[in-house]
């Protein structure tokens, strides 16, 4: 069985689509954050795979993956802090309860 880049890309696409669905459909803020993480992981997988196939020595994709991890770690830290702050305010982590900025 030959595992080409398409396999990794397809797997990443599936993971990304699932994460996307979770981000769109779930109402819990924590669930949405988790879905975002899933999407970030899918992207990372894509980049690492392409890095392996296209630039094995330069490892460009791996570096992008590292920085993506940094960003998503920062994002998850801030996001969870936000969730906590919102929870203190509204006693809820439902995204639907965070709509005071609506038009």
């Amino acid at each position, binding site marked *: 069985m030959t595992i080409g880049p398409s396999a990794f890309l397809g797997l990443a696409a599936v993971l990304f689509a699932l994460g*996307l669905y979770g*981000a769109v459909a779930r*109402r819990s803020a924590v669930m*949405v954050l988790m879905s975002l993480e899933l999407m970030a992981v899918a992207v990372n997988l894509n980049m690492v795979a392409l890095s392996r196939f296209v630039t094995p020595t330069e490892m460009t994709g791996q570096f992008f993956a590292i920085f993506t991890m940094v960003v998503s770690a920062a994002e998850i830290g801030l996001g969870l802090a936000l969730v906590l702050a919102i929870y203190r305010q509204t006693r809820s982590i439902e*995204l*639907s309860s965070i*709509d005071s*900025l*609506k*038009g």
Partner: protein
Amino acid sequence: MAYVALIPLLPALAFAVMAPLSRVVRNRVRWLGVAGVGGALLLSLVAFASVWPGGHEGEAAYHASWPIAQVGGVDLSLGILLDPLAAIMLLVVTIVGVCVQVYSLGYMHRDERVGWYFAVLTLFTAAMLALVLSDNFLMFYMAWEVMGLCSYLLIGFWHEQEAPRKASQKAFLTTRVGDVGFAIGLAIMYATVGSFDFDVVLGSAGAWAPGVATAVALLLLFGAMGKSAQVPLHVWLPDAMAGPTPASALIHAATMVAAGVFLVARALPIFEASGVALTVTMAVGAITALLGGLLAAVQHDVKKVLAYSTISQLGYMFLAIGAGGAIAGMFHLVTHAFFKSLLFLGAGVIIHAAHTQDMREMGGLARHLPVTSVTFGIGALALAGIFPFSGFWSKDEILYAVWNDGHYVTFAVALMAAFVTAFYVARLWFRVFTGPVQTENLAEGHTEMLVPMGVLAAITAVIGLTAPRFSEFLGHAGHWPDPAMAVSSSVVALSGLALGWWAYGRTRLVLNTRSLKERSGHAYTVLTQKYYFDVTYEHFIIRPYMRAAESLSRFDGSAIDGAVNGAAGAWKRLTEVAWSFDGRVIDGFVNGVARAARASGGALRRIQAGRVQTYQRYVLGALVLLMLWIVVKGA
């Protein structure tokens, strides 16, 4: 010599410091006014000394000017002209000013607005000094008007009462009538010469057309008549006695009212160029001197006696100047300033002591007010023209000048006036200081009040002896009185005093006013009605004026307002049309835009639901479209 400019500036500075302060603080620092005027006095002494050895003809000892503005083609400047005349006036003003200020410290110390009183008094002094020192007619006029303002403020100082209020208005408006003449005269003068400077104007006066000179001179005289309360513009001065007595002493006896005389003396070349104007001046002076003196003889109010006396004496000065005795007139101005302010200050003490201004309620004050009675007596004798007091000398010079110039009718009038003067002086003194005591709690004035009176009395007593030096100082040959003239005038004065004594001094033969009234009949009524001047003014000027004003007001209301309202109505119709256009078309457009924006906003608002995930879906949708496009395009 630039310090001369400080003479008016010091009191002005004192005023500038006092004016913005709060009432309480200003009351505390009222000594600032005394200090300002005192400083002016010291500087004036220096200035006088610097001018003294001169004696040069018509030449300014010191002249400087500073341009302040250029209006149109007119260069306006402030200037200092210190000549002997001005130096003398400086001394008179500052000495009397200091005396009055010191006196006021005692007289006004219980008034709750005493600080403001002192501030205005100081400002007045500054204005008077500026007037005296001015080197051009414009600055003269400005100072003149500031003095008018101060006079108004001081007459109406007790504005809580109605009489001072009305009196201040009357004074202001009446002098304003004269000021209008003054202003027109200045305009003609400027149109003729193109300058306001004394040098230029007076130097060229002899070359003017006689008509112009006469017009300018008469208009200036008109202004002077208003300020100096000459018939027929004298009506304000007696009423002005409603103000504080020391202020009356300074303003309505010694200085401001003399400014008119000073003006005529300053502008003498114009009057001389005219000739007619001199005669008019003399006539006005003569009439005023006699009529004022007669009125003084029937007044019961101490201050009003002095007020009419002032009118009369100012008339004397005009008479003298008009008759060619300008030096005599000025000398009378000086002596009068001292003895009349002395008399006013004495009157202030009397009023304080007797708690009334009515002579009929006074009597026998001499025992209780020794100092006042003596000083007041000196002033009274000076006023009556008794040797050796100052009035004798000046009056004598006037009579001499009139006689010498050949105005015999005027001379007769002047003699009559002198007689009347002596009579009312006697009446005043005897009614106040002799006879039965009618009031209780009599008390001599404060030291602050008595000291200035003493000073003024001393000056009054001796200043007449300077008569020859005075003339020389002003550039004329000095001389001692002509014995014949001196004797005749003394006889007249003494006979007046005798009549006064006969009428009021003999305690057992007191003529009550009633009997006097019966004896003199209509004449007395005319006098008590003050020659019907006020009534005449009321009838022929004020009432017609009011009627005219009312009809004008009606005209204003019907015709002009009608026109205005008609125009307004037409405009309103127009605007209504415009408004409806505005409302339908423009607003319609604007509102349409707003409605459109609102509708689109309302529609878009639904997009912004505040739900993060809704936004996510938009982004996702856009992303999908983008990817579709890429894929399709790539195909």
